[in-house]
């Protein structure tokens, strides 16, 4: 199963404060361990929401809203994607995640499982997704 560990934003990350060399180094060490265990699929950081925007859909209507967005604790600052055998294995890795906050105080990560194509009822659209993914993963 594939798992996304979502790093929630903080006041610092939204203000554009960059991580210290110490935090960068801790993060790198942790990701090296993930890599050595053969579970790391991807990891990246996102720029503050002030550089982003939202599109709101209401039926066929679309409205564009420019960032920044207010609810800092619910925004995403980064993510790490891993491939593991069980939820327990995912939680073990999640517990070892370094405290991602820039000031070393409060932070939160959210652990969520990916849908796989087998989770969808079979059909033409799902088959086309499968063809698109052939060779993309693993």
């Amino acid at each position: 199963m594939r798992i996304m560990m979502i790093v929630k934003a903080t006041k610092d990350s939204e203000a554009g404060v960059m991580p210290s060399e110490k935090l960068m180094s801790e993060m790198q060490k942790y990701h090296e361990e993930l890599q050595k265990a053969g579970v790391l699929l991807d990891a990246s950081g996102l720029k503050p929401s002030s550089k982003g925007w939202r599109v709101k859909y209401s039926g066929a209507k679309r409205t564009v809203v420019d960032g920044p967005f207010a609810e800092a604790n619910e925004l995403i600052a980064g993510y790490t994607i891993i491939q593991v055998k069980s939820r327990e294995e995912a939680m073990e890795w999640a517990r070892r995640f370094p405290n991602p906050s820039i000031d070393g105080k409060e932070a939160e990560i959210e652990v969520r499982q990916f849908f796989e194509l087998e989770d969808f009822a079979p059909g033409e659209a799902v088959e086309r997704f499968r063809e698109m993914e052939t060779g993309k993963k693993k």
Partner: protein
Amino acid sequence: MRFMIIVKASKDSEAGVMPDEKLLAAMGKFNEELVKAGVMLAGEGLHPSSKGARVRFSGAKRTVIDGPFAETKELVAGFWIWQVKSKEEAIEWVKRCPNPMREDSEIEIRQVFEAEDFGAEFTPELREQEERLRAQIAAKKKR
């Protein structure tokens, strides 16, 4: 430059209602266009937060909280990672994205940090390690 296109959750997605064939087909068509244009790096859906968890950090302390989580509209239901030449190109693609839910919904577009954004704190040693990691991941994906 890379962008993350975040599909926000809805009442349906959090309740585990799966997309119908019509929506799957519309998304499939959009995805095929992204792949053909060489824009799509990843695209995935996430199970409802009832199957997820959170880890809260306070200094060195960690607390695990099991889902589901209440603030539906702030949760993530899925995402794409796109590689484009400009913000304008990303905007053009977003305009063509089908409404990802049957209800009112929202997507959020965010730019991904690249190594050069980190400045001096990202030392040559750390950069080298990062490049090695990325190369290993890329090699693993190709296998």
